[in-house]
């Protein structure tokens, strides 16, 4: 029995490319990975937003309204609903003048109990240190 930790690090801006969306959908896929593994083995994913990547966390995204596609916000909410560990870099939020009021912090409206964590970059570094593999998107 073993657990492998994957740290998804989102640094790209949303929508123009698919990178941040794919980071989230891949991370969420960790929920069904057991079908390929031996009993007791796990792959645990966390998602950390750094640099420009913190802009993926803005609330009120309206991709469905304008382009008919799901929002990054919706995927981020699903990751919280699935109790994934979500870290958002405080220094980078500060750089953009953003606070917790501006960004998606929870998925309470869809029944989620886990909250996103606004943390210093040092905590995200620790997340990378603790990970088995790091996946930058």
């Amino acid at each position, binding site marked *: 029995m073993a657990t492998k930790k994957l740290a998804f690090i989102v640094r790209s801006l949303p929508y123009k490319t698919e*990178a941040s969306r794919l980071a989230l959908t*891949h991370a969420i896929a960790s929920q069904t990975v057991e*079908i390929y593994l031996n009993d007791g083995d796990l792959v645990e994913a966390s998602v950390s937003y750094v640099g420009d990547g913190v802009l993926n966390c803005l609330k009120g995204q309206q991709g469905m309204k304008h382009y008919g596609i799901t929002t990054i916000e919706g995927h981020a909410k699903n990751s919280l609903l699935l109790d994934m560990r979500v870290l958002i870099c405080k220094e980078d939020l500060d750089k953009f003048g953003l606070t917790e009021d501006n960004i998606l912090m929870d998925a309470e409206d869809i029944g989620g109990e886990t909250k996103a964590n606004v943390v210093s970059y040092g905590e995200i570094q620790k997340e990378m240190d603790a990970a088995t593999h790091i996946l930058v998107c």
Partner: protein
Amino acid sequence: MGKLTIGTFSSLVGSLSLDFSVKLAEAAVKKGHKVDFWMSGNATMLAKKGQKAFKDYSFLAKPIQELIATGNFQICACEACAEARGYHKEDCPDGFIRKSMDWYLASTFDADRVLHIGGD
């Protein structure tokens, strides 16, 4: 010998990052390592048969078939990403597989190294 899992989002045409990952896979297999190769997003363009070689564009079908023939290389495309682009099961080249994203995450479980190319 170890196992390298490569995951990439980069497109076949328009970026050389996919070429990089195939060449790295070739070098790793040549050294006796096993390689799992995952494509999602635009990288699924590689999982479309019938590609023609033009000197202005990357052409990776031949090295991929040679890698598959070694028996130490698995290549898998994200099924949803491929379908979204109109690449269906019958379009998949011989030796390629198509799975959901959890295949990739499972591959990382026993990988010694993971190289994730999360952009073009």
